[in-house]
């Protein structure tokens, strides 16, 4: 599906360049603000359903009982937008964010991302894209409440003030709730004045998470927790090879299991419906299925590596060409010619994929934790032959997302819809961990070949970088964003636009094909290029006899924000000074999603085992709405990056994934956890992202430290697999 066909829900939004999960987006957003008063542009019913009180736009309601509610267009998957977005609304409305009720928005064009005609959560853009519109939403409601108080008291509105949910005059005060009903009858002002940031009480100050209590009492509802009356539980047997199908099924043993309600063949495989999840899983395990393998079902990781290596010898599509790198490289300067390799990776969200669907005669309801509401709805509507408006999506909390819950084909949603339609009742599909791990839609594997040369001062003068990897944008709702005849920009992001001053830079991309489906994974192309580009910089530093930090400083001249971040991390980690015995440092920096992150890893290697003791992390994300949230995301990103650097690999054998659970796809555990020391570097740069930018520097910083410790160059991840 192209970006154009996704536009049905909101063709009025801007078509400017935007890549989900990618740093390609410019985040100084153009916000298509529209008021949604009665007869406004919010789709029918959205505001009418809100009950009494003031709801001048899609995002806010002030009720006569003095409650204030915010509707979030974005999904909370751990990254903290439940808090930061509420903080933004509360600021301009002048209500303490801690007493605002939070609702996840229904699918509606009013909640589309300002840069795309669809509602989704990705690209580390939730806070930046919500910033202006939530400020305006809050300021509008506040202005209307003020207007009512001014009228009642017969004074000028600008003689009144607001604080924490009250309007205050010289001798009087009124709670917002007392004014809400009357304010709801007013026409929203066409313009509102926003606060001077110097007057902010909430924005820019650390605020504790607003979703902690439900998450420490077990009350937070995730998709897997949804229970509907008369709901059947389903488990699905899925083809062991990517793209495989079913030839024949023997379900006699399954049907004999108590609790099994039925067996149903669907596009995803063979589903067993039961009265509980365990019976469904047992029933699934008892199926005897003759699978029809897909073509290429003998595929292995080795085959892919050989294919990609061959591609690296061919010219690819040009992602960047400055100067003439090949000509300089032919000039006989000191040079390297190296290959880097990264594996497929599973998102491995703690909450396995799941979805509840209820299809009735002419409507459908879906409950799930999704990152892409609009396209999920469109896909369900297409499957059912319904108008999208007949399909409702109820977004729950997500037990992690990392990109996986924004699937370009709505895979985990459609199978529940298909089953509910067939069964005529609500159905919950719960993926087993094995289903989730082996189900594809991975971070692509990739190979890079870099030829680079240095001059007599040891400074890089030419860099010729060829990448072979699958595109995540082709075939996705974001495909329309790939330029005509151009390669998928997310494959080369972080290389083609590297901040390092290299006079002759050429980056080429081969969009490789593979039956293994891929999609965006926390930090997307930067999860490759951060490792490769920083690794090559270290190799060039060694070749030229320079220190890795000092070379980076030299290549960032004229980039004060980058330099400040790099130096902040290096200084805090005592770069260049004696470390604890056996401890060594490595450094990396990557700019992604509008933010700059530098990390220093402190590592020891004993008996071949890599131990990371400390990660020092500096970030400049421009202005941080919730600095506490940014720090938490850096810690999270370090762990996510370490799992990938040290352990992560999905191998392919006989056309399917080798790994299946946390025993063979290990994630970092608490006893491997380094201390993470985060520094927020202040700047006046535009607001950047926080969820993803902490991931790319992790692996190269650790690899750099391993080299310092052992002299062994890590050119392949995970580190444990490096030869």
């Amino acid at each position: 599906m192209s970006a154009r066909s996704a536009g049905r829900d909101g063709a009025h939004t801007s078509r400017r360049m935007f890549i989900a999960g990618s740093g390609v987006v410019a985040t100084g957003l153009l916000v298509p603000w529209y008021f949604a008063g009665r007869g406004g542009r919010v789709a029918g019913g959205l505001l009418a359903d809100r009950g009494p009180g003031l709801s001048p736009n899609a995002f806010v309601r002030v009720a006569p009982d003095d409650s204030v509610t915010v509707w979030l267009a974005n999904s909370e998957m751990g990254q903290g937008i439940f808090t930061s977005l509420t903080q933004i609304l509360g600021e301009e409305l002048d209500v303490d964010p801690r007493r605002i009720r939070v609702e996840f928005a229904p699918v509606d064009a009013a909640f589309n991302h300002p840069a795309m005609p669809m509602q989704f959560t990705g690209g580390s853009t939730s806070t930046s894209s919500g910033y202006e519109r939530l400020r305006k939403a809050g300021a509008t409601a506040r202005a209307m409440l003020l207007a009512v108080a001014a009228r009642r008291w017969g004074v000028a509105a600008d003689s009144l003030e607001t604080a924490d949910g009250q309007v205050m005059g010289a001798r009087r005060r009124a709670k917002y709730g007392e004014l809400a009903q009357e304010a709801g009858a007013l026409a929203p002002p066409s313009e509102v004045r926003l606060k001077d940031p110097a007057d902010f009480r909430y924005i820019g100050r650390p605020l504790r998470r607003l979703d902690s209590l439900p998450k420490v009492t077990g009350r937070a509802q995730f998709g897997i927790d949804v229970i509907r009356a008369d709901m059947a539980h389903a488990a699905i047997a899925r083809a062991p090879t990517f793209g495989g199908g079913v030839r024949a099924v023997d379900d006699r043993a399954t049907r004999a299991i108590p609790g099994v309600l039925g067996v149903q063949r669907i596009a995803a495989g063979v589903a067993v419906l039961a009265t509980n999840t365990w019976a469904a899983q047992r029933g699934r395990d008892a199926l005897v299925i003759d699978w029809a393998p897909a073509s290429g079902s003998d595929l292995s990781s080795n085959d892919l590596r050989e294919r990609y290596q061959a591609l690296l010898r061919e010219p690819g599509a040009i992602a960047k060409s400055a100067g003439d790198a090949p000509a300089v490289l032919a000039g006989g300067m000191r040079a390297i010619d190296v290959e880097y390799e990264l594996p497929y990776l599973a998102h491995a969200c703690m909450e396995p994929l799941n979805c509840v669907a209820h299809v009735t005669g002419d409507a459908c309801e879906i409950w799930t934790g999704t990152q892409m509401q609009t396209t999920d709805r469109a896909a369900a509507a297409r499957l059912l032959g319904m108008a999208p408006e007949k399909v409702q999506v109820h977004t729950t909390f997500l037990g992690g997302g990392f990109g996986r819950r924004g699937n370009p084909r709505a895979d985990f949603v459609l199978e529940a819809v298909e089953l509910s339609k067939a069964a005529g009742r609500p159905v919950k599909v719960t993926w087993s961990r094995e289903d989730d791990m082996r189900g594809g839609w991975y971070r692509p594997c990739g190979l890079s070949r870099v030829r680079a040369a240095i001059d007599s001062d040891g400074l890089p003068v030419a860099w010729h970088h060829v990448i072979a990897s699958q595109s995540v944008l082709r075939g996705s709702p974001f495909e329309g964003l790939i330029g005509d005849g151009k390669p998928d920009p997310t494959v080369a992001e972080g290389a083609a636009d590297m901040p390092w001053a290299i006079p002759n830079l050429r980056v080429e991309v081969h969009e490789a094909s593979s039956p293994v489906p891929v999609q965006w994974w926390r930090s997307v192309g930067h999860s490759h290029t951060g490792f490769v580009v920083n690794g090559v910089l270290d190799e060039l530093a060694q070749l030229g006899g320079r220190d890795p930090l000092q070379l980076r400083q030299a290549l960032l001249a004229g980039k004060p924000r980058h330099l400040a971040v790099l130096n902040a991390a290096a200084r805090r980690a005592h770069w260049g000074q004696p470390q604890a015995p056996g401890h060594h440092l490595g450094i990396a920096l990557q700019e992604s999603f509008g933010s700059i992150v530098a990390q220093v890893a402190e590592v020891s290697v004993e008996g071949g085992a890599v131990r990371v003791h400390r990660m020092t992390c500096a970030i400049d994300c421009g202005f941080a709405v919730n600095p506490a949230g940014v720090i938490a995301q850096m810690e999270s990103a370090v762990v996510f990056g370490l799992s990938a650097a040290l352990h992560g690999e999905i191998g392919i054998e006989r056309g399917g994934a080798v790994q299946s659970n946390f025993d063979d796809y290990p994630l970092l555990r608490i006893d491997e956890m380094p201390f993470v020391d985060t520094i927020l570097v202040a700047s006046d740069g535009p607001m950047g992202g926080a969820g993803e930018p902490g991931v790319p520097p992790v692996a190269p910083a650790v690899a750099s430290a391993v080299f310092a410790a052992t002299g062994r160059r890590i050119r392949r991840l995970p580190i444990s697999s490096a030869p």
Partner: protein
Amino acid sequence: MPSLEINGARHELDADPQMPLLWALRDLAGLTGTKYGCGKALCGACTVHLDGSPVRACVTPLAAAAGRRVTTIEGLPADGSHPVQRAWVELDVVQCGYCQSGQVMSAVALLASIPAPTDADIDAAMRGNLCRCGTYQRIRAAIKRAAELLEAPR
């Protein structure tokens, strides 16, 4: 028909005694705070207490729980007033939150047996609880904070 005491209330569950406690809690008793993550005792998301000791509900058959006291996350104070819950909130531990029922239950059990745990105690008690969001640093700090809160006279 296994009979269980869950969070102080008696439940008669019409289920196969081999059904894992996890699914009985979630699908039959409607207590969805206990999470499924791996089904093989590899992640700790399903951690509950049996007579006060932590077990992985995904590999504990109903038969093994019959006649014993089961405590789930819902058995902790709903207002979050348990010192472990308070420490978790104070230190902003949670992210997506999915693993946190299991983390909290493991931490409560740890502090019940070791009131002032060392880092090594925390590693040993908590290494079975995965967190994909990477909240380990705060879990460690929050366990120490909860130990202080438990210690403080109330």
